[in-house]
């Protein structure tokens, strides 16, 4: 969920910008490093960002009867790592604000923090954790996408209740969470399932891409072929 333009008081807009900028700057440094080593990765990063944007504009049938879209941030984080995902996420958010009227420019910092930093970071950590425990990569990607989605919403609810702590932070937080929970619990699971389907197809058709991105090791590929 994007925080709409003009929703947050200016003090909070500023605060979230201050929080988000260092992380994005770190991501930019990482991207610079990658593109200096492999110049061919620059167009690849661009097309991947475009892919995230297109993914987020696809409508997904959901259980609640409403239509929502996958955020794609779980997949992006698992494929490219959280630092790069945060930069791609930031650019995608600017485009979403200007082209689709989702989100806004003054609330961009807050949106980057929830959707470009917390969500991808959680997704990436969980994916790595699950792989280390030794579960399958499908399970990992499912949990990563679900957790990435939920944590994004928890962060958004936190940001909103910090901005409008009426009467107290805790009570406002419960209210925002209740409203989000109705749609987000099923939606996150739906996104998780969809991400697994996408990931499995990529693994089946072009495992070399995933290997190049170091998402899976050659060993995983052999396992997959054996199955």
């Amino acid at each position: 969920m994007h925080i709409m333009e003009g929703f947050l008081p200016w003090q909070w807009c500023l605060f979230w910008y201050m929080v988000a900028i260092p992380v994005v700057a770190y991501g930019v440094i990482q991207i610079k490093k990658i593109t200096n080593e492999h110049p061919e990765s620059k167009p690849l990063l661009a097309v991947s960002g475009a892919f995230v944007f297109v993914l987020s504009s696809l409508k997904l049938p959901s259980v609640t009867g409403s239509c929502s879209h996958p955020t794609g941030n779980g997949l992006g984080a698992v494929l490219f790592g959280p630092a790069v995902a945060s930069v791609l996420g930031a650019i995608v958010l600017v485009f979403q604000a200007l082209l689709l009227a989702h989100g806004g420019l003054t609330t961009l910092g807050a949106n980057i923090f929830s959707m470009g930093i917390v969500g991808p970071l959680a997704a990436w950590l969980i994916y790595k954790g699950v792989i280390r425990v030794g579960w399958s990569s499908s399970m990992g990607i499912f949990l990563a996408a679900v957790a990435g989605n939920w944590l994004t919403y928890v962060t958004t609810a936190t940001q909103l209740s910090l901005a409008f702590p009426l009467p107290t932070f805790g009570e406002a937080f419960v209210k925002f969470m209740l409203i989000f929970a109705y749609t987000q619990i099923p939606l996150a699971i739906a996104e998780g399932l969809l991400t697994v389907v996408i990931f499995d197809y990529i693994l089946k058709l072009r495992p070399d891409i995933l290997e190049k991105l170091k998402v899976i090791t050659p060993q995983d590929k052999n396992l997959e072929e054996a199955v």
Partner: protein
Amino acid sequence: MFENTVDNYAHHNNLKGANIYFKVLFAILTMFMSLISTSPIIPIIIAVLMSFLIIFKAKIPWKFYLKFLTIPFIFGFLTFIFMAFFFGFGTPLWELNIFSLTVTIDGFNLGFLVFSRIMGGFTCMAFLSLTTPMTELFSVLETFKIPKIVLEIAMMMYRYIFVFLGEGINMYHAQQTRLGYHSFKSSYKSMGILASNLFIRTWIKGENAYLAMESRCYNGSLHINNYQNKIGTKNLFILFSFEALLLAGVYLSGNFTLI
């Protein structure tokens, strides 16, 4: 597609020739005024003025503009209702006899303030996105010391978004004619196939684009043509007096509430 037309209008409107820095400065400053206002008056004035500029000065068809405004309007309105019911603890204004829901005065005022700020800020953003092509916006960002690599990636991304939207829509229609979305389960399967294929195609396109660029002497940076018309002292004067007027309005209407 909807996105296509926003881009289309950004390239074909009456304010396209105006200096880009002037437009950005105008939109951002006005957005800021709407943001710092503590009463709903100034944001609403801004929303009306901006809509007027967009429809009559930039000559964007009003039907299209209203359609563009519906998303923020619906969202803002829902926020207004939500806040009116749940975010007030003062005197009740109106009591709903089911579920003991009440609208309170302070909740109503807060909701209306947020609603007006959303509309004020959003119209400023709409002004920017409907009158300036994205590639020109990037050249402005370059003067703000945004790293070049980010802008380049953003610019290429912008190009590919339209390529993939077209491709995605084609694939979607192809799947639809083969009953790919007739049931819940098949929708998931089809959507997954579509997205993963899109990713693989994206990847191939990216590799090909790099090869094509490299064979045309791409050395890691793109150059943007950045020619701009002059702003003119008169326009600058009008801009700053307008913003000063808004600021004074923000100050004077500080404690005003609707009820």
